[in-house]
Structures are given as C-alpha cells and as structure tokens.
C-alpha cells in the first residue's frame, strides 16, 4: 500500500520547506502567514488523529485533550519556569505522553462506541478541570498575559518570518515521522488491528500494547500541534480542550479522506478556507459547514482525496485494459 521511502519523504519535506520560504519572500503578507500557521497546527492535529481513526480503526473523540494539555503545559512552563523553548518543548512532550499512557491504558481496553465515549468523557473531565482550577489554568479566561519567546539557536520566534519557517519545519518534520510510522511494519500491524483485531491476536500481534503505542504516538503529535498553536496565539485557552476541537479534527478527516495520508491535511485546508470565506460574509457558519459535510458524506461517500484517488485508480485501470486490448 505504501511504497514510500524515507529518503524520498525527506527530500519532499525539504522541498516543501524551501517552497514555503520562497512563497513568504514572494508574497509575505501577514494574511498568508496566518493561514499557513493555522494549517500547520490544525493539519498536524488532524493527521495525528487519523493515525488512530484511519489507520488503527480507533474512533477517538478525545484528541483535543492532548492538544489542550500540550498548549497549557507549554505555556505554563514558558510563563513560570524561565526555561528556553527547546527544553519546554521537550518537557511538554514527555509530560503529555505520560498523560497519554494513563488515558490510553484505560481507553484501549474498550472497543467501538465504548472507546469513543470514554475518550470523550475523559476529555470533558480534563476540560472541566481547566475551567475549575482557575488559580493554575486561568479558568475560563485561559492563560493570558502573553508567552515569552526567548531566542534559541539563532531563532527568534517573535520575528514573524522566523516563526513562520519554524512552524512549517515542525509541521513537515512531524509529517515525515508519521508517514514513516505508517509505512513501517508497525503501521502494517495497526492496519491489521483495524481490519481484523481478532485475527491479528491469533497471529501473535500484541493488539492491546500496539493500540496503546498508537494512542501515545498520536497524542504526542497532537501535543506538538497544541504547542504550535500556543506559540501562535501566545497563550492557551480552554476551548483548545473542548469537544468541538476534537469534532473539528474528525471533520477534517472526513472531509479530506481517512485512507490517504494527506487526506486530513486537505481537510484542514478546506476547513480553514471555508472558515475564512464564511466568517467574513455570513454569521451562520455552522450552516455552511453542515451543507459541505452533507455533500461529502452523501455525494461522495468518502473524503475528497479518497474520492480523487479512486477516480484516478479506475481511470488508469481502464486505460491499462485499453492498451492491453488494442
């Protein structure tokens, strides 16, 4: 299914970063950078969730827990500890992955709708805690008051261009890693679990343990997305960990397509574009998003990229038969 090689992915990744830099030099408007930055965090969030939903068959409705936890922990560390960005980044990854191990251990024991609702329930608990523990989390206001961004390794994230290149690079590196995981034997074992967990078990696949791995890896990249967002908005807010954020993640996956690695990225692009078009002109943006989802679900019955891939596959198959029967 995935004939990707690491070398090719790395080269493509470098080209994307260079292209992003050139684009910024050509039309470096704040508007463009804003869109790109939102794409980096939302797109990464959706791709991380798709590791569970699309590849492992675990429909998590709690991905925003880790997105929010990442943003809060990172912001708190930056505001209170005086650490540099790289160490706060690393500590946040470690901290949230511990949280993910605990939450994942509880959740992956269940399957189907029970798994989904447990992830949702834990997310709501986490959200309530963010609201209630206001001396620590700022309550409903969130962590305001800015986020200090001391320069590191010659990178100054208060400089818009630096921050733009930093975000794009983090996004690209994360995607290269996730793509490698998906194309690896471990990725294959996740698809085995998705297709037929029972059979995988009788082939000696440690199903529960691998589900937990997938859960933690997925949470780790949701954390990275959360950190990028907190850097972008210079703070952390409770709606990061609200169920609507998880819903957006699923929305992007459905829109773009779950069986293609880049489907959720396309979904993020569509969501951001729709958001921008709609919020400017109409108040009822839920109405338009709903219509789009209806169109995708009822009209195409799969995400946009899956749909296009299918058309392309049937087209090349037809032209192959035509060539073989002149």
């Amino acid at each position, binding site marked *: 299914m995935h004939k990707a090689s690491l070398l090719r992915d790395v080269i493509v990744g470098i080209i994307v970063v260079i292209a992003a830099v050139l684009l910024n030099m050509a039309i470096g408007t704040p508007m463009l950078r804003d869109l790109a930055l939102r794409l980096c965090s939302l797109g990464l969030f959706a791709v991380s969730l798709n590791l569970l939903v699309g590849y492992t068959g675990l429909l998590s409705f709690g991905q925003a827990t880790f997105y929010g936890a990442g943003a809060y922990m990172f912001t708190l560390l930056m505001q209170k500890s005086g650490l540099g960005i790289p160490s706060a980044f690393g500590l946040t990854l470690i901290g949230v992955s511990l949280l993910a191990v605990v939450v994942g251990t509880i959740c992956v024991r269940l399957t189907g709708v029970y798994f989904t609702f447990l992830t949702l329930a834990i997310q709501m608990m986490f959200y309530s805690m963010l609201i209630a523990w206001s001396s620590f989390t700022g309550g409903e206001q969130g962590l305001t008051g800015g986020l200090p961004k001391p320069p590191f390794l010659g990178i100054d994230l208060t400089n818009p261009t630096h921050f733009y290149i930093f975000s794009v690079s983090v996004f690209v590196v994360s995607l290269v890693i996730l793509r*490698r995981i998906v194309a690896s034997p471990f990725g294959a*074992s996740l698809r085995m679990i998705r297709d037929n967990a029972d059979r*995988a078990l009788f082939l000696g696949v440690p199903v529960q343990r691998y589900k937990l791995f997938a859960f933690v890896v997925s949470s780790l990249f949701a954390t990275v997305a959360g950190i990028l967002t907190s850097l972008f908005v210079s703070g952390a807010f409770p709606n990061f960990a609200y169920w609507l954020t998880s819903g957006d993640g699923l929305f992007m996956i459905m829109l773009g397509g779950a069986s293609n690695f880049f489907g959720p990225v396309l979904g993020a692009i569509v969501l951001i574009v729709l958001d921008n078009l709609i919020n400017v002109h109409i108040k009822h943006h839920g109405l338009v998003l709903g219509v789009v989802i209806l169109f995708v679900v009822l009209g195409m019955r799969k995400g946009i990229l899956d749909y296009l891939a299918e058309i392309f596959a049937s087209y090349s198959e037809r032209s192959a038969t035509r060539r073989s029967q002149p």
Partner: protein
Amino acid sequence: MTARLQLVKLHKRFGGVVATDNVSLDFAPSTLSAIIGPNGAGKTTLFNLITGRLKPSSGQVLLDGKDLVGLEPGAITRLGIGRAFQVASLFKTFSVRDSLAAAVLSRQRALGDMVGNFPGSMATDHVDRILHLTGLAHLAQRGSTELSHGDQKLLDIALALALEPKVLLLDEPTAGMGRNEARAMLERIHQVSQREKLTVIFIEHDMELVFGLAQSVRVLRYGAVLAEGTPAEIRAHPAVIAAYLGSEA
C-alpha cells in the same frame, strides 16, 4: 510415543451447561487427526480452550509437556499453536502477499519496527515458500477479499502456517465447499502436514473425507469423547454408529 499436544481432563462449563466434559486426548507429532461430532458437540469450544480464547474450568492443555492454561492467545500462538477459522478470517485491505508478510514478521517479532519499510525484503523468501506450499502463488498480488471462497480458506490456513506452528488447528477447513473442492483442500492439508512435519487437528463434517485422510479420528458428543481410534475402528464402533453415523443415514 510422547504426545505433542495433550489435553488432560479438560472441563468447561458455561453456567449450567457443560460444553467440554472431562476431555483427555493425546495428539502425536506429525499426525493428521480429525475431530467429528454432531452440531453442538463442543468441537469449536475445544479449539477455543486450546488456543486460549476460553479458559477451561479445570484441566490442562500441554504442548510438549508445558501447560498452556492461563496464557493469553498471543502467547499460545507464539509457543506454536496456529489456528485457522471456520469463516476465513482475513485482513480485507491487505493483498495476499502483504497478509503473509505481516504474519511472517509477526512470527519474527519484527512488527514493532517503526522505521523499516513494510513489507520490505526480510520476509520475501519465507512468504514465497508459503505461497508455493499452499498453491496461492499465482494470486499473490490479489486483495484478500477478491479471492474465491476456497482460496480465502486457503489463505487463512497459509496465515497460520506463516507462524511456523508445531500444531495447526483447522476449524472446518472445507466448510461451504463442494465435495471435490473439499477433497482437494484436505489433500492439500495432508500434503502440507507431511512436508512440514506438522501436527494437524481438523474439524470436519463429511465422514467420507475424514475416513480417507485422517490417521486418527476423535468423536465428540455432548462435550465428551465418545470414541477415538483409526478411521477403520471408528467406522466399526457401535456407539459411533448409533450416535452419529446412524443418525446421518
């Protein structure tokens, strides 16, 4: 001769129902044994007890003398008990070759690798050998679910073979097949068991097929062993004739 697989006073009850009643059976290495019995005789339950899907209420399952009771299905699989299912249990988005590669990598405990490429080249030789052994080589690139019913059953068995088991449990390998197709399937299984020196235990309904191929036959009824012996002995066994063969006629 020491037994490869030994069931000792195996007992399983579901509430008030006794599904497996004091079953003691020995299976010698490199033999082909059939388990027959009417519906509800506890044949599949017996397989579930051996493979760890179910835990026996009491008794032992010994593989080369080691007790398997209480181990997880995955651990029992790794110790050398492979299993194919009554309804072919496959990975629908995998090709035949990829399914087998995944099974081989699982055997080699290489599925946790997050860096390498799947299927990669490590498993190729092994996969080719199994494709050849099971006669699925010409279908290697096909999707698992594109196969015919018989080939799906064969792939299911091939997946179990990829684990290099010592004991292979086949739950009705000929279910849903015509007489000729079923005969071909059992001959293929016979061949594989001979070549791989496997202990094969299969559940079968068709008496004629069983008597043609199996070296030993065990008859279950109401969860208990009604009779065991060579096909000729079973054919002449009065209790079997009364309980099973008689009712078939």
